[in-house]
């Protein structure tokens, strides 16, 4: 406090101050990148230009989040903010045509069970996508193309759900996004097979800003899988915002799979808006990245909606995995369910923050939250926090958090039957994580995720 002689002197941490200085510089670079893109944006519709301008002013005001923000307390994004010295579109990025199908097909779901749209370093790769002969009632295209062709739902919904005020990454994404997927499912259309949005990084020091909009008309039904992967071990940044709109009675199964390079920064927001009687099941699988932050937020803005937010994360080495979720019960008679499961080894850090917000007239809310973490080493850490804000009186909200180690008794039991220690350990970890995998209804995706899990357990 100024003028107070007894106050302890401010602690100078030169390293921290340097980082803060660098983050301010990073902010300036991003602001410059915005200015540099002005001619490109002039071709965009006015409503979008206005939303971008508003977003960049939020970013200018708030900058990148810091560990002083309660929501970013455990996750320092300084390195992510500073990674890219020239955060402009298309720098250092190889031409999409240089990447062949065989380079990335390991990430494909099988043909029968998916329609695929592929992006390389944030750019649409038509030659890897399967966008011909789409089923009736489905529009699936690159977001830039959708903007150019003037798709109506864009103006209604793009940037209307994920708020640039919430954090600097959403603001930057809104201001600077280049491409992503646009999905629209007509009223009452039931779309099969699953729609697979695959984003692959192929080059170092890229900063893809991916923007997706998924819109399900009333009574529509679809399955959407987002995969974020890399064919290199490079350091790069992926900044993602996916807005999901489920109109009355729509049903969406949503999966997000993050298998980025272990040197990558992955910062994503999934923002769900569900109307009357809509059901949305969203499952997040986080395996990769040096730092991974995912905000999964759902607003139940209609009666009798049902939202599930599940997650599984597996962190080792010095990976940081941060999952923040918000379930906003805005209307009465809605149900929401959440289960987050984490497995942490070595010196990995996990963060889980699950907020349930029940607004004053959201009576008969039924919200369940469960989060479990398994620590495989003494050096691993998990910070878990349920956060309940309830303003209605006739509600049912339950939450439970458990943090534990592998059960020695169970390990001995398996070993006493001849199963080697490492295999027994794998079995127990798998058993711990299986509850979330069991909800995956696409067989090839489930197989891939299981393989990822088993592979990453053996390091």
């Amino acid at each position: 406090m100024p003028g107070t002689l007894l106050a302890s002197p401010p602690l100078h941490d030169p390293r921290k101050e340097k980082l803060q200085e660098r983050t301010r510089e990073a902010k300036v670079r991003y602001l410059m990148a915005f200015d540099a893109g002005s001619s490109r944006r002039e071709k965009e519709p006015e409503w979008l230009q206005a939303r971008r301008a508003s977003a960049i002013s939020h970013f200018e005001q708030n900058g990148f989040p810091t560990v002083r923000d309660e929501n970013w307390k455990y996750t320092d994004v300084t390195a992510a903010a500073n990674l890219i010295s020239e955060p402009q579109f298309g720098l250092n990025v190889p031409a999409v045509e240089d990447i062949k199908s065989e380079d990335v097909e390991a990430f494909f779901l099988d043909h029968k069970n998916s329609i695929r749209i592929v992006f390389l370093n944030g750019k649409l790769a038509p030659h890897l996508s399967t966008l011909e002969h789409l089923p009736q009632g489905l529009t699936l295209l690159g977001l830039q193309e959708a903007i150019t062709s003037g798709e109506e739902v864009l103006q209604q919904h793009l940037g209307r759900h994920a708020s640039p005020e919430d954090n600097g990454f959403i603001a930057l994404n809104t201001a600077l996004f280049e491409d992503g997927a646009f999905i629209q499912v007509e009223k009452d259309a039931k779309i099969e097979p699953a729609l697979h949005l695959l984003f692959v990084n192929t080059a170092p020091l890229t900063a893809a800003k991916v923007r997706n909009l998924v819109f399900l008309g009333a009574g529509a039904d679809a399955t959407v899988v987002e995969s974020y992967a890399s064919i290199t071990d490079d350091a790069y940044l992926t900044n993602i915002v996916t807005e999901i709109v489920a109109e009355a009675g729509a049903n969406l199964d949503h999966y997000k799979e993050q298998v980025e390079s272990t040197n990558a920064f992955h910062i994503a927001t999934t923002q769900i808006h569900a109307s009357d009687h809509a059901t949305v099941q969203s499952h997040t699988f986080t395996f990769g990245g040096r730092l991974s932050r995912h905000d999964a937020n759902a607003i139940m803005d209609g009666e009798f909606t049902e939202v599930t937010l599940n997650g599984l994360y597996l962190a080792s080495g010095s990976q940081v995995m941060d999952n923040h979720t918000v379930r906003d019960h805005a209307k009465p008679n809605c149900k929401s369910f959440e289960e987050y499961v984490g497995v942490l080894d070595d010196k990995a850090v996990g963060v889980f923050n699950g907020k349930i917000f029940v607004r004053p007239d959201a009576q008969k809310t039924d919200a369940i939250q469960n989060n479990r973490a398994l620590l495989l080493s003494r050096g691993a850490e998990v910070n878990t926090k349920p956060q309940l804000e309830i303003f209605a009186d006739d509600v049912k909200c339950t939450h439970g958090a458990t943090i534990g180690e592998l059960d020695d008794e169970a390990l001995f039991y398996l070993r006493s039957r001849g199963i080697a220690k490492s295999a027994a350990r794998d079995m127990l970890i798998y058993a711990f994580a299986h509850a979330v995998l069991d909800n995956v209804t696409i067989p090839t995706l489930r197989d891939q995720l299981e393989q990822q899990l088993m592979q990453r357990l053996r390091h």
Partner: protein
Amino acid sequence: MSEKPVLLEIKNLHARVEEKEILRGIDLVVREGETHAIMGPNGSGKSTLAAVLAGREEFEVTAGEVIYKGKDLLDMAPEERAGEGVFLAFQYPIEIPGVSNMSFLKAAVNAIRLHNGEDEMPPVDFLKMVKEKTKLVEMDPSLLNRSVNTDFSGGEKKRFEIFQMAVLDPTLSILDETDSGLDIDALRIVSNGVNQLKTEKNASIVVTHYQRLLNYIIPDFVHVLYNGRIAQSGGKELALQLEEEGYESIKLEEAVTR
């Protein structure tokens, strides 16, 4: 009659947990085809002996040795012991939610086969074998679809232990208080399973507090464990004598000889 080959030889075995010495010099020889009962009051070290033989790491062996099939058993990891044919039926089988009984059994069978230089069992043969063995302990095959021991009744857990014994076909079985918590029908079924698995080549160590189990599984030898040592050994009639007189006479004798 020439004596059968020795399967297990325990010499002067001492073991402790933390600072407490529990086994204080056990000597025991088990030959092929034999059934040995280990009896004794609570706290005498019966379950510790079973656990040390199976390789539980909380117990520290401070002296003595255990030779099994001519090899140093104490030098082997628990999974190696299982590979060599040692099986412990647990007093309190462990629940492992999320691991299905089938994948557990398959992993165990194939791990043991691998240890013995055999190929994995073809899935069809495995299924057939497993189904066949459920009959031995009159186990409901639907239990196989559940997670290991999860939500099993006490009786189901014990049956499942003996069923595993049948599936893994061990050379040395150690049954730790298998009778505890069983009603008379379950006891009969479990014992019947154990008896059917008996061969000329394998052997069992049956750890029990009560004589009751020994009406069904007839031992060749009965040993009374007291204070971490074998205080008395005899034939099956010793069990009956203990049933009548309790452990008091042995406690007294121990006190006098010391």
